[in-house]
């Protein structure tokens, strides 16, 4: 057998099986778990890279599960778009796994670590599955795998608030998934098909059918809930704030991105662009919503005092960017949107990893606690600065690339009003990030002002002393991944043609080109 | 022969249904929990038994009717047990039985 031919299946099955093996190995020796997770995420990264490579050379790959040809069996369809997202997801997962050992060691009870890593792998599997599948019901199944593991991972945050956050996420996530299920049902009812490509062929004559319209509405609402588009974002801030650092990082960096990817799939693969533009004004609605999301997310972020919560709100805004690009339905903006999937993953990944480093070293979660941290943790804070500048959209960072594409795309589409929105949100993010950066570098360390409640209760023994200014950075196991991501924030801001070349093809494909 | 079988099974099923309805009425009509258990525990069990027996007769003798028989047996085992469990739960919780006059409930 030609192993490469089966990569599309293996890239899901291997993490899945090893999620199980992680659990078993954890029963023997807990140290195995991390090693397995690391190896497998790396392997997946390599495989997805190879898949993307194949796609770039040969075009769309279609893998038939059980050798049943598409409308009958489940198909894995990989094109530029999901090849790209696969690489992003697996890479981020690899980096976060690399990072996770120390952080998990601190934040999760040691005896729970096998279950943690197993769920972590399942989350990863689910995300990869959501990305790769070409079958709409299979998408639902993977959404559920992702969500379920996500609920549990969030719920084991140290603070009890994480439980309520997780429960709310569970309720809203279930509503979302069920809405998607309803959408699938309605579509199935009038087409008889579950395959995305097949649906694309079968739907056009039915575009004005009320069933299809309803189905579309439910998909949109369900996916918006999943990816936390503005009015439906309410689950996100709490969930990201109270989850363990590693979980916040992986979820912020990949989970909503994959949600956005699913949205793109439904909007532009299952339905055609003409439908989105002419039949229902969904692009207009999403446009308005994403604009509100961008502004509101940034404004809400300003008023936060908790680092992770601030980052979470900023995510709400950034998700707005991704959606915004899709709604203009021209290639430039769409490219911006797709590239922002990568870029935001890198930036948010960096920032959340730094937040994790800080928690690891000091237990501080409050923004005010970061004062003077530039002396104490220079490398982490450098990474944070890079991430923050990137979020602001300073040139030579990835953030600028996204904004460039989105803005020029908006202008191409003749939507002038987008420009101020993008720039205002940049300004707002400049405000909330600058506040922190300034504190990091230009303020004396505040002596242990964080109260017991604001830190992890059980961490108090870990570092009971006032924050000293002497250098005491996170251990290399955490620092290196953080720095890698930060470096990539800059690298892809300079070598932007690498992701852009893929994203442009993907955008072209989504918009109905070849 | 078939006709006779059908008639017999019809009678059995009708009786069974009748008992089931009676049981339902009993469940609604009886004044307290303990007394309601009587129709539930007996009327229902036998009613079901009869209906299923009717089906057995209708089916004739083959593996399917054996399966029906198995169902009947299980119902006869499980139903009184459930009734008992319930009664005990109520009894343990101290639910007082309804008494007509100043009866002599122990």
């Amino acid at each position, binding site marked *: 057998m030609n192993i490469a031919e089966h990569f599309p299946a293996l890239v899901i099955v291997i993490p899945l099986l090893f999620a199980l093996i992680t659990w078993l190995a954890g029963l023997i020796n807990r140290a195995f778990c991390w090693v397995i997770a690391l190896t497998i995420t790396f392997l997946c990264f390599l495989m997805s890279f190879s898949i993307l490579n194949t796609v770039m050379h040969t075009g769309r790959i279609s893998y038939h599960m059980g050798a049943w040809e598409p409308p009958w069996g489940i198909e894995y369809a990989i094109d530029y778009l999901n090849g790209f997202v696969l690489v992003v997801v697996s890479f981020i997962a690899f980096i976060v796994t690399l990072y996770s050992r120390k952080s998990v060691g601190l934040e999760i009870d040691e005896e729970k670590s096998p279950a943690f890593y197993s769920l972590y792998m399942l989350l990863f599997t689910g995300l990869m599955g959501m990305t790769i599948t070409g079958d709409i019901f299979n998408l639902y199944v993977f959404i559920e795998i992702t969500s379920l593991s996500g609920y549990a991972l969030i719920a084991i945050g140290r603070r009890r608030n994480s439980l309520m956050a997780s429960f709310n996420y569970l309720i809203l996530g279930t509503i979302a998934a069920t809405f998607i299920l309803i959408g699938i049902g309605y579509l199935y009812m009038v087409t008889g098909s579950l395959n995305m490509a097949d649906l694309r062929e079968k739907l056009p004559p039915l575009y004005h059918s009320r069933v299809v319209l309803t189905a579309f509405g439910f998909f949109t609402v369900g996916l918006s809930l999943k990816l936390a588009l503005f009015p439906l974002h309410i689950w996100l801030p709490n969930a990201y704030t109270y989850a363990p650092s590693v979980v916040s990082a992986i979820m912020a960096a990949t989970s909503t991105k994959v949600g956005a990817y699913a949205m793109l799939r439904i909007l532009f693969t299952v339905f055609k662009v003409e439908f989105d533009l002419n039949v229902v004004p969904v692009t207009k609605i999403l446009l308005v919503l994403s604009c509100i999301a961008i502004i509101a997310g940034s404004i809400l972020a300003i008023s936060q005092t908790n680092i992770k919560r601030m980052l979470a709100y900023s995510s709400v805004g950034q998700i707005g960017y991704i959606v915004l690009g899709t709604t203009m339905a021209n290639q430039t903006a769409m490219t911006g949107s797709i590239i922002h999937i990568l870029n935001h993953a890198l930036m948010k990944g960096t920032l959340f990893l730094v937040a994790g480093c800080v928690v690891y070293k000091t237990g501080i979660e409050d923004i005010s606690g970061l004062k003077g941290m530039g002396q104490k943790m220079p490398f982490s804070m450098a990474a944070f600065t890079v991430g923050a500048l990137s979020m602001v959209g300073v040139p030579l960072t990835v953030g600028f690339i996204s904004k460039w594409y989105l803005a020029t795309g908006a202008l191409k589409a003749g939507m002038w009003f987008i420009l101020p929105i993008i720039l205002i949100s940049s300004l707002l993010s400049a405000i909330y990030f600058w506040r922190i950066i300034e504190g990091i570098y230009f303020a004396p360390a505040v002596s242990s002002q964080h109260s017991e409640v604001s830190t992890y209760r059980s961490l108090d023994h870990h570092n009971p002393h006032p924050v000293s200014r002497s250098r005491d950075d996170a251990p290399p196991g955490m620092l290196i991944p953080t720095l890698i991501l930060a470096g990539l924030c800059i690298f892809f801001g300079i070598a932007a043609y690498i992701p852009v070349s893929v994203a442009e093809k993907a955008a072209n494909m989504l918009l109905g080109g070849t | 022969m078939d006709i006779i079988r*059908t008639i017999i099974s019809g009678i059995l099923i009708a009786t069974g249904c009748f008992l089931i*309805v009676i049981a339902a009425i009993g469940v609604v009509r009886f004044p307290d929990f303990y007394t309601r258990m009587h129709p539930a525990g007996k009327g229902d069990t036998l009613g079901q038994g009869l209906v299923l027996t009717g089906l057995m007769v209708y089916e004739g003798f083959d593996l399917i009717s054996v399966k029906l028989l198995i169902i009947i047996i299980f119902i006869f085992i499980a139903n009184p047990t459930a009734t008992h469990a319930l009664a005990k739960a109520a009894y343990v919780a101290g639910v007082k039985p309804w008494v007509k006059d100043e009866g002599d409930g122990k």
Partner: protein
Amino acid sequence: MFNIAATVIVLAAALVIYRAIKGPRIYDRVLAVNVIGTKTVVLLALIGYIYERPHFLDIALVYAIINFIATIAFLKYRQTGGLD
């Protein structure tokens, strides 16, 4: 014939549902649900015969075997306050 029987049983179930909702005590409800459970067994068997597909008996059998577990769980909960 089976249709009529099934309808009758369903109507009987209506009475029991009345009891289940009316209560007044939790025991009455459990009792009612138990009765509905046993009626369901019969109903499933009858539906099998209406459709002439004896496969349905398997479902009836499941109910016959495991329907009382919930009741026992209830008893245990009332008796000891836990399920352990």
